[in-house]
C-alpha cells in the first residue's frame, strides 16, 4: 500500500490539483471547512508534497485509502478537534458511493491525509513556526500583551541562566561594572571618612561650637556646615571671555600663580568648547560646564555674549557656581553695550576686575589636615574604634598655621630645629606643589628621632615626610652620649669632652678606671682619654701598704738566713701587710705578685754569698706561705753585687767588708689586672 503512494507516477503539480478540486462538488465544502488548510496550501502545499514524500515513506503504512475513513481518521488524529469532523455533513453510508469516492478522490484524500499528518507532527509544526517566529514577533511590534505574555517566561529563563552560568555573567559584567563600583565605593568611603574626621575634629574646637550654633540657627545639618567651612580650594585664575571671538576681556590671577598667555589660553578654551560640542553634542543646547584635571577644575559659566572661566584647585563649595553666575549676570548687564559692539577693544571692560576680585579666594584648611587626608582620618577612626573615645588633640601648633606665609616660616623653623639637632644632618629638602615636605636626613643611632625633635618644638611629629640614612656623627654631644652609653659612668665621675679629648675627673674603683680607659679609646670621635683626674680611694691605701712593704728594712746577721732579732717583727709586719693587700687587691679583681731580692755582704766566698742571699728570700716566702698566702713569688739571690751601705772612708767597692745593712732582703709588689697581665697599672 505504501507502494501505491510512493510508486504513484509523477504527482500532479499544483495547477493540476486545483483544477481537479474545482471540478468536484465537494471542493467548496472542503475549502470552507478547512480555511487554514486552504490558506496555507497556496504556498506550502507543494512544499509539503515534496518534503513529505520521504517522511511518509519512512512511516508505516498510514496512507492507505482505508485509513482515510472518518472513523479511522478520528482514531489517528487525536489532536485535531473532533468538532471539525462532527461538523462535516453526513455522508450516506452507501458502499457504492464510498467506493466511488475512493476511486475518484484517492489522490486528494491522500493529500489531505498528508496535510493532516504534517499538521499533527510536532516536528513539522515546530519547523513551520520556527520559520516565521521572528517575523511574527516583529509584526507584533510594541504590543504590550506580548511583553506581558513573555515576561514570566523570560524572567524564569534569566533566573535559571543566572544560576547555572553565574561565572559567565560575572565575567561579562565585572569589567563593565567593576570600575564604576570601585570608584563609587572609594568616593563614598572617602567622603565618609573626610566628613567623619572633620566632624570629630570640629566638635573639639571653639570653631566647632560656633558652627554648631550656625547649624542650629540655619537649620542645616551640622555636617553640611562643617563641609561648607572646611572645604579647601584656591581660585587661581579668572577669565572673562567674549563668547563669540574667544578674546579675553579681563583676566585675573591669584598672586604667585604662573600663567600661560591669557589671550591664547582663552582662545584655546573657547576652541575646546566648540570642539566638544561639535564632536559629542552636536545640536544640543548644553554648554561645557567644567573641565577636571586632577586637583584642577575649570568652571565655565557661559552666556551667549560672554562667559567666565574659573580655574581652581580643590573643591569649591556648592554655591560657588551660583555666585559666579550671579556675578556674570551683573556684568552682562553692566557691559551690555560694549559687549554688543565689541570689536577687540578691551578698554571698556577694565571695570570687570572689580566684580571678579572677590572670587580670587584662597581658602586654606589647617595644613595638618590638608596633607594626606587618610593619614588623619584613619588614626582618628582607629582612636574612636579602639579606645572608644577621643584623646586630646593639640591645636596649639595648628593655630600657628593660619596663613600660608606663616605656615611657610613655620615649616622652615621646623627644618631649622632638625638642622640644629645634634646627630641629624639635613641633606635634602623638597616640596611638591601643595604636597608634603620631604626631608632626607643622616641620622646617628644616638640622635633623637626627627619626630620627637619636632614634637618637642610644637610640631606635628609627621609634619615632614622624613627619610633617614644611618651614619656616625662626630658631633661632641653625640660622642659624649656614645661614651656614656659605652662606659656606664658612675655618679662620682664627671666627664668632659672637647676636641677629641676625653677627660674624666672624680673617684671611681680602679677596675672601672682601667676598663673605661680602654673602652673609651675605641669609640668613634674619641682621640685621647685622660683618666689621671680619677682616683680610687682604695688606691691611696694600697699605695701606702705597698710603700710600707717595700720600705721594710730587714737585715740579717752574718751568714744567717734569719733576720736579726730586732727585724724579725718588721718582717712579720710586712708579711702581714702583704697578706692583707692580697685580699684587698683580689677583691677588686686584680692580682698581686711579689719579687724578693736577697742580698749578702761582700765577706766570704761569693758562691756562698749567692746561696745565703737566696736562703734569705726563702725565709720570706716560707713566712708568707705559712700565713696561707698564695701570692706568686719570684725569688732572686743577688749575692753581694748590690751593697747597700755607704762605702766608708772611700774604700774601694770591691774591698770585702762586713756590712749588716747590705745583708738584707728587698720586696717588690706588683699589682695587675688578670686580663692585661703584665701591665702594671701603678705607674711609679
Amino acid at each position: 500500500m505504501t507502494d501505491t503512494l510512493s510508486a504513484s507516477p509523477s504527482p500532479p503539480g499544483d495547477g493540476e490539483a486545483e483544477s481537479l478540486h474545482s471540478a468536484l462538488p465537494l471542493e467548496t465544502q472542503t475549502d470552507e471547512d478547512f480555511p487554514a488548510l486552504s490558506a496555507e496550501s497556496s504556498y506550502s502545499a507543494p512544499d509539503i508534497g515534496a518534503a513529505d514524500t520521504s517522511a511518509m515513506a519512512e512511516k508505516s503504512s498510514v496512507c492507505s485509502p482505508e485509513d482515510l475513513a472518518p472513523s479511522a481518521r478520528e482514531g489517528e488524529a487525536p489532536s485535531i478537534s473532533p468538532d471539525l469532523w462532527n461538523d462535516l455533513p453526513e455522508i450516506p453510508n452507501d458502499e457504492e458511493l464510498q467506493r466511488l469516492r475512493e476511486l475518484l478522490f484517492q489522490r486528494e484524500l491522500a493529500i489531505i491525509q498528508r496535510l493532516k499528518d504534517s499538521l499533527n507532527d510536532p516536528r513539522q509544526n515546530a519547523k513551520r513556526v520556527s520559520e516565521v517566529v521572528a517575523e511574527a514577533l516583529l509584526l507584533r511590534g510594541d504590543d504590550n500583551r506580548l511583553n506581558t505574555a513573555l515576561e514570566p517566561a523570560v524572567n524564569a529563563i534569566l533566573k535559571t541562566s543566572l544560576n547555572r552560568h553565574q561565572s559567565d555573567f560575572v565575567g561579562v559584567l565585572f569589567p563593565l561594572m567593576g570600575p564604576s563600583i570601585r570608584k563609587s565605593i572609594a568616593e563614598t568611603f572617602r567622603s565618609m571618612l573626610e566628613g567623619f574626621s572633620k566632624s570629630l575634629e570640629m566638635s573639639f574646637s571653639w570653631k566647632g561650637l560656633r558652627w554648631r550654633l550656625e547649624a542650629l540657627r540655619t537649620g542645616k545639618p551640622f555636617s553640611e556646615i562643617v563641609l561648607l567651612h572646611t572645604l579647601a580650594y584656591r581660585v587661581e585664575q579668572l577669565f572673562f571671555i567674549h563668547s563669540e571671538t574667544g578674546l579675553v576681556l579681563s583676566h585675573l590671577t591669584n598672586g604667585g600663580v604662573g600663567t600661560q598667555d591669557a589671550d591664547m589660553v582663552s582662545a584655546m578654551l573657547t576652541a575646546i568648547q566648540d570642539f566638544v560640542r561639535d564632536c559629542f553634542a552636536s545640536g544640543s543646547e548644553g554648554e561645557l560646564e567644567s573641565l577636571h584635571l586632577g586637583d584642577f577644575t575649570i568652571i565655565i559659566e557661559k552666556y551667549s555674549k560672554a562667559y567666565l572661566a574659573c580655574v581652581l584647585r580643590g573643591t569649591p563649595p556648592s554655591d560657588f557656581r551660583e555666585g559666579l553666575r550671579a556675578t556674570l549676570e551683573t556684568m552682562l548687564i553692566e557691559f551690555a553695550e560694549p559687549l554688543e559692539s565689541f570689536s577687540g577693544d578691551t578698554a571698556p571692560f577694565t571695570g570687570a576686575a572689580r566684580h571678579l576680585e572677590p572670587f580670587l579666594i584662597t581658602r586654606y584648611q589647617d595644613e595638618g589636615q590638608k596633607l594626606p587626608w587618610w593619614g588623619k582620618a584613619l588614626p582618628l577612626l582607629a582612636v574612636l574604634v579602639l579606645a572608644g573615645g577621643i584623646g586630646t588633640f593639640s591645636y596649639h601648633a595648628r593655630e600657628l598655621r593660619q596663613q600660608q606665609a606663616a605656615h611657610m616660616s613655620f615649616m622652615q623653623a621646623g627644618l631649622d630645629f632638625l638642622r640644629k639637632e645634634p646627630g641629624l644632618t639635613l641633606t635634602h629638602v623638597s616640596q611638591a606643589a601643595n604636597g608634603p615636605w620631604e626631608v632626607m636626613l643622616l641620622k646617628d643611632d644616638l640622635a633623637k628621632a626627627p619626630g620627637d625633635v619636632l614634637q618637642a618644638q610644637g610640631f606635628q611629629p609627621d609634619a615632614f615626610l622624613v627619610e633617614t640614612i644611618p651614619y656616625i656623627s662626630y658631633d661632641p654631644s653625640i660622642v659624649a652620649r656614645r661614651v656614656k652609653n659605652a662606659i656606664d659612668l658612675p655618679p662620682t665621675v664627671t666627664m668632659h669632652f672637647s676636641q677629641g679629648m676625653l677627660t674624666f675627673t672624680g673617684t671611681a674603683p680602679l677596675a672601672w678606671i682601667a676598663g673605661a680607659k680602654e673602652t673609651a679609646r675605641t669609640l668613634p670621635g674619641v682621640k685621647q682619654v685622660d683618666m689621671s683626674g680619677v682616683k680610687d680611694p682604695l688606691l691611696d691605701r694600697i699605695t701606702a701598704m705597698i710603700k710600707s712593704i717595700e720600705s721594710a728594712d730587714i737585715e740579717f746577721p752574718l751568714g744567717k738566713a734569719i733576720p736579726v732579732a730586732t727585724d724579725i717583727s718588721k718582717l712579720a709586719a710586712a708579711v702581714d701587710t702583704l697578706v692583707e693587700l692580697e685580699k684587698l687587691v683580689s677583691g677588686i679583681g686584680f692580682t698581686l705578685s711579689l719579687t724578693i731580692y736577697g742580698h749578702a755582704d761582700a765577706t766570704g766566698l761569693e758562691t756562698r754569698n749567692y746561696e745565703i742571699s737566696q736562703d734569705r728570700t726563702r725565709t720570706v716566702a716560707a713566712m708568707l706561705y705559712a700565713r696561707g698566702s698564695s701570692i706568686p713569688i719570684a725569688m732572686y739571690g743577688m749575692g753581694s753585687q748590690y751593697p747597700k751601705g755607704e762605702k766608708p772612708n772611700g774604700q774601694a767597692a770591691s774591698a770585702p767588708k762586713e756590712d749588716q745593712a747590705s745583708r738584707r732582703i728587698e720586696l717588690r709588689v706588683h699589682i695587675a689586672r688578670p686580663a692585661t697581665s703584665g701591665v702594671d697599672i701603678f705607674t711609679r
Partner: protein
Amino acid sequence: MFNAVQLCRCTMINKKICMLGAFSVGKTSLVAQYVHSVFSDKYLSTVGVKISKKTIAVDDGQEVTLVLWDMEGRDIFTNVNVSYLRGAMGFFVVADGTRAETLDTALELRSLVLDQVGAVPNALLVNKADLADQWEITESRLNQASAEGIAVFRTSAKTGQSVEEAFRALAEAMLKAGRNV
C-alpha cells in the same frame, strides 16, 4: 601677599583672526617665527586648531594683539570646523604658489568664511615666494584676484618676505573696520 590680585589684561586692542588653507601650504610655518605660541602642534591635529598670538604696532602707534586661530589644513573645505570661525574679525587664506589647486581651495575657503562671518578684512597669502621659478600659479590669476578686490601677498615662510607686511595690513584693515562698527 597671597591674595594680591594681578590685573593681567591692560587695555589693548585684541583681534581674532583665522588662518585657513589647503594641506601643507605652509600656514603654520608661515607664522611660526613671527608669533608667540605656547601650544604644541598636536592641538592642531587633535582639536583642529592651533592658537598663536602676535602683537604688532600699527602706524598710528596703536598696539594690536592678533589671536591667530590656525585651522587644520583641509582640501575638502566643507569639513572646516565653522565653529572656530565664529567671531573672526579678519582672516587669511593661504595658498602654495607651487601648487595651482591650492589657490582654488584658498578662494573657496575665502567665500566660505565670508559666508560664515560676514565681510571682514581678509587677505590671500600665496606662500613659497622663495620658489618663484617653480610656481604654478600664474601672475595673471593673481592679478585677476586682485582685480576682484582680494588683497594678495606673495609671502615666503622661509625668508619672511611680506609676512609682517600682511599681518600689519590685516591689522590696520581690522582696526578701521572696528572703528566703523
